[in-house]
């Protein structure tokens, strides 16, 4: 499903971000210096930040004024993706029904999702009893259940070690393929982008640039990206 940002302007107290671009099916990475507006771009697409100008459309429908829950989008945050007082099972089950009144088949679905992310026996634990990687797996399991056409990740694996991060990225890539969804991923690591993203958007100097093939962009970086990469 395509995401189209037309003449988008997002203004916040201390900075502004412009975007006029289309994100195609497949996997797209968002890269750029911190504080440049990468997260803001995702928040706008998910409906948490209202643009001052321009429009956002997803799969041909204009969603600029649609509330977050009605957008075909799941967004995973850097942290706090889980409610600390709910169990792993409950946190995951929220993806099926926010009031957690689950039928027998729905319970099976939740267990299945936990299975897929490798947390089969952890359903009764609380988030505080999990490692950082396991917590983000719970969030992924919930994203699986929500089954939205667009999955967006805001550096959810930034705190993990390289091996674990790669493992998680591969898991995400697998999920994307399985669900045939559009994946949008903020990262500060060019390696990650190369690993799973065909296209990459550079966000720098208050502008989100048109997506470019990742390898080409990284091999021949424009000045802003070169500065960020230290090349």
């Amino acid at each position, binding site marked *: 499903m395509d995401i189209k940002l037309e003449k988008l302007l997002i203004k916040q107290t201390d900075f502004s971000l412009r975007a006029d671009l289309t994100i195609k099916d497949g996997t797209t990475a968002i890269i750029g210096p911190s504080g440049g507006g990468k997260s803001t771009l995702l928040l706008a697409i998910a409906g948490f930040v209202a643009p001052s100008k321009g429009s956002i459309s997803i799969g041909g429908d204009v969603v600029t004024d649609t*509330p977050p829950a009605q957008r075909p989008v799941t967004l995973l945050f850097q942290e706090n993706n889980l409610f600390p007082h709910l169990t792993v099972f409950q946190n995951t089950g*929220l993806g099926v029904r*926010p*009031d957690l009144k689950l039928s027998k088949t729905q319970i099976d679905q939740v267990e299945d999702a936990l299975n897929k992310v490798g947390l089969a026996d952890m359903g009764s634990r609380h988030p505080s009893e999990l490692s950082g990687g396991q917590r983000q797996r719970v969030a992924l399991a919930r994203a699986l259940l929500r089954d939205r056409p667009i999955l967006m990740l805001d550096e959810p694996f930034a705190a993990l070690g390289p091996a674990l991060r790669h493992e998680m990225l591969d898991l995400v890539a697998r999920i994307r393929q399985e669900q045939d969804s559009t994946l949008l991923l903020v990262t500060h690591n060019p390696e990650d982008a190369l690993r799973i993203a065909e296209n990459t958007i550079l966000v720098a100097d208050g502008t989100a640039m048109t997506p470019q093939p990742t390898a080409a962009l990284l091999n021949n970086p424009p000045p802003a990206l070169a500065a960020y990469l230290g090349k």
Partner: protein
Amino acid sequence: MVIRPQSMNPVARWSGLAALLFVVLLVAGPLVALWLRASTPSILTSSDWAAVRFTLFQATLSASLSVVLAIPVARALARRSFHGRSILVTLLGAPFLLPVIVAIFGLLAIWGRSGFVSQILLSIGAERLNIYGLSGVLLAHVFFNLPLVTRLILQGWTRIPVEHFRLSAQLGMSPKDLFLRLELPMLRSILPGAFLLVFLLCVTSFAVALTLGGGPKATTVELAIYQALRFEFDLGKAAYLALIQFVICTIIAVWSLRIAVPVAFGGGLSGVVQRWDVSSKLLLWQDSAVLLAVAGFLGAPLIAVLGRGLPALSNLPASIWTAILNSLTVALFSAALSVLLALALAGFIDGLKSRRPKVSFVVEGVGLLTLAASPFVLGTGLFIIIHPIADPFALALPITALVNAAISLPLALRALLPALQHNRLAYGQLSDSLDMQGWSRFRLTTWPTIRKPLGFSTGLAAALSMGDLGVITLFAPPDVETLPLIMYRLMGAYRMDEAASVALILVALTLTLFWLFDRGGRLGHQT
């Protein structure tokens, strides 16, 4: 995960022990002194026990009501941003800081038999309002404490991570789901502590219970103590009653500390998280109605105090200036002391947390107890102790400052402890690994994280001390008048208008003092 406890810094240990010893002596010393001076063994009469029952009854009811009513107010404040929101949040600090007698007259101007509401009722042909009785006591206690609880709960709301609200929005949670999943768990952790605080504050209520309670039915333990001390000079009975009050408060304190997580004051009140669950018209109306009602409920008596005090303002004697100076001096000394005490004790408790959790719990409980201390017993007991060995007049300033500091200690402790704990958990190991010790550790890592609650508690201590009339009456040297003292003396000499003007000055100064400190703590902070 087991964190290897570091040995406690000796400065923290000794200053903490000294502060603890001081609090224990301050609370227990006067009781012992009263007992030793008591000439006859005292027996509690049935009316004393009735006073105990009524005290428990009204404090429980007042605390419950304040807590229940504060929830929708805090909820509305947490999810709405509007013009005047910061004014309303500031207004929330005001009632708690009002001297009791000033608040009573403010409330009567609105709710009294000739008050604003009664006038409206009379003009439409209805009966005038009669609040005297339990309803009057509850009205006043809710007026004092609802804002306090609202601020505490609001704090809890701002501690919910913004991601959780976004997550709920993305998952399409209804307001009801969101309440059950997000807000209720937060409330469960905060409400017991808030309840305890209000309960303790209401236990020692005296003038409110008597004046608005409508008669001896509304006799509290504090009044019985006053009677024993002033009229019957039965020191033993006063000590006995004070002890009962302590025991009750300790039981309640232990009970609610067990089920509560620490409640923090100050800080983080200005931010409003954008919410996606509250766009419905009905909720907007509901929140607006709640906020308007609370603004009116808190604001109207304050406006009445203002209006009542203005006319005679130019009529005040010149001695008002020295009274202002005296009051400010006492307030500032006492605020400084209170914060030093609280810092020492909070550091000590925090240091004990990782090593001896049970001991730290007891120390924390002791730190709360001065709230349950009867100011009359405290003042009289100290007087008995000090009078033989030193001139009470000469010690007026330090004693008044000390006692006021001790009384506001629990509030300061509540504000500082969570900040210190958070600081240790977040940066403790980092600081250890950098071998940051002593002063530089305090200055570089502790100070920046606690200055906000510190500013808030300094302001609170100063403000509470401004309105105090408990201890200064016994110790104040001749010619030395504080604002509350001058106000009472004017009332006693028929000068009600002038007394109202002094009340106005007192309230204005108190709020300014609080505001300055509270704001000072926030300066340079992004909130």
